[in-house]
């Protein structure tokens, strides 16, 4: 088995042992509860909002949770003197994180499709989760690099939410409807994320969706470069200096 697969399956094993997967399932049921209590004829809009919020927030927070668990237990030190490279470390965490994202969204989608009869393009949703989840897992790494503990990491995440999530949420909730505002939002990765998820329920211009996908893809590559580059400093810091 390659080092990547060992790390990846190790992540999945620990997600189960540390009840992270259980927490993902509970979050999914919490979202279902919310969707169930909303008294509107079509919950598609709320479903999209929940998926958007879930992928972005959980992708960032799960990276923080797993890394700070490992830091707290000293395991990072042991991993850093094992025959693995930084790419294997980063990618195994990111992909395991995507699995957690997929489980949550799959449960919520199952409810939304079977019980609430909404129309969602599932393959499109799958690719959207992959792209948005990867992008925001890498954002999670960058926040972790700049945080000394989990609390600092949460503060970093809140800053990201305020700067990148809130402006998009204002538009999603219809609080700001200006076209100029909407166009400016296209500068944000969260707007691209929201666009991709919205597209899974149809009705969006193909060019706009393609632009959002390219934005996130290029953004992911740029972030991957910085995450990879920042890893060495992170190792120096976590090796106890």
């Amino acid at each position: 088995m390659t080092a990547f697969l060992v790390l990846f399956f190790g992540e999945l094993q620990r997600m189960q042992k540390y009840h992270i997967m259980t927490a993902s399932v509970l979050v999914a049921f919490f979202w279902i509860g919310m969707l169930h209590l909303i008294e509107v004829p079509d919950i598609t809009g709320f479903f999209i909002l929940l998926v958007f919020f879930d992928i972005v927030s959980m992708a960032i927070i799960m990276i923080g949770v797993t890394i700070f668990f490992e830091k707290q237990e000293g395991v990072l030190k042991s991993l850093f003197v094992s025959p693995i490279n930084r790419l294997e470390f980063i990618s195994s965490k990111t992909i395991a994180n995507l699995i957690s994202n997929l489980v949550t969204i799959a449960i919520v989608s199952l409810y939304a499709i079977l019980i609430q009869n909404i129309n969602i393009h599932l393959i499109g949703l799958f690719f959207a989760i992959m792209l948005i989840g990867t992008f925001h897992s890498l954002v999670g790494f960058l926040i972790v690099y700049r945080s000394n503990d989990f609390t600092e990491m949460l503060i970093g995440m809140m800053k990201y939410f305020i700067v990148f999530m809130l402006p998009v949420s204002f538009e999603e909730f219809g609080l700001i409807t200006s076209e100029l505002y909407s166009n400016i939002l296209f500068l944000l990765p969260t707007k691209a994320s929201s666009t991709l998820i919205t597209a899974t329920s149809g009705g969006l211009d193909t060019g706009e969706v393609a632009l959002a996908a390219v934005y996130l893809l290029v953004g992911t590559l740029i972030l991957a470069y910085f995450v990879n580059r920042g890893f060495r400093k992170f190792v120096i810091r976590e090796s106890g200096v």
Partner: protein
Amino acid sequence: MFSISDLRYQYPKNEEDTIKGIDFEIKTGEIFGLLGPSGVGKSTTQKILTRQLDDFRGEIKYQGKSITDYDKNFYQDIGVGFEIPVHFSRLTAEENLDFFKQLYKTNADTDQMLERLGLYPDKDKKVGEYSKGMKVRLNFIRALLNQPKMLFLDEPTNGLDPKNARIIKDMIAEFKEAGGTVLLTTHLMNDVEELCDQVAFMADGRIVETNTPKNLKMEYGSRLLKVEYSDNGQVKEANFKLDDLGENQEFQQIIKNKKILTMHSQEMTLDNIFIEITGRR
């Protein structure tokens, strides 16, 4: 196995070098002790040799090749034993070892090591439920699980009862007997005296002395015998040179006529040598 020349290292946020140009060699099959007070650069040196810190200056060769030329497979050859716990607390000892074993091409018989270190009955217990001593023993097994050629050990017997410390020391000696090389960092001079072939004392980022423990004791000790004896109800003390003790009349008289209270050769302990060389208590 390792040759280190003019090694220097500066941490990104520090104004001056932490390691200030050190040279030493660790020969294949020897146990090399790196000693010194806290904060003099021992851990930094070990981190550089284990490639946790890579932007050093100077030259480090492992088996004749610069360590910067090795890829991740460098870690197939080495084992690192940490002083602090380094295991997933919610996984059992066996799950932890199995996880790390899969990362290596060769594996040691960890069941046998668990058995020897008294952990086998608790191998299915979560590591979070282990005592400090059990975690230290598990760390040692973790360091050996890939059958390394080179072992880096940081205070391997710290926090252990004498029985388990003995087992660990025996295992280190056996590792050496089997051709393994060890870099040992410890404050326990008994361990150093018992295990190390060569020791280097560090102070302020430099190596200030390198020698065998035996030579150090000879170099720093005085070849004197100190005798305390009772003379007309008074306790008296006399020092005699060891070299001509057999012919020393005064010594012979004391032995013959006085009541000897204590008699000690004045060789220096490694503890005292440590204090003298590094200048700290």
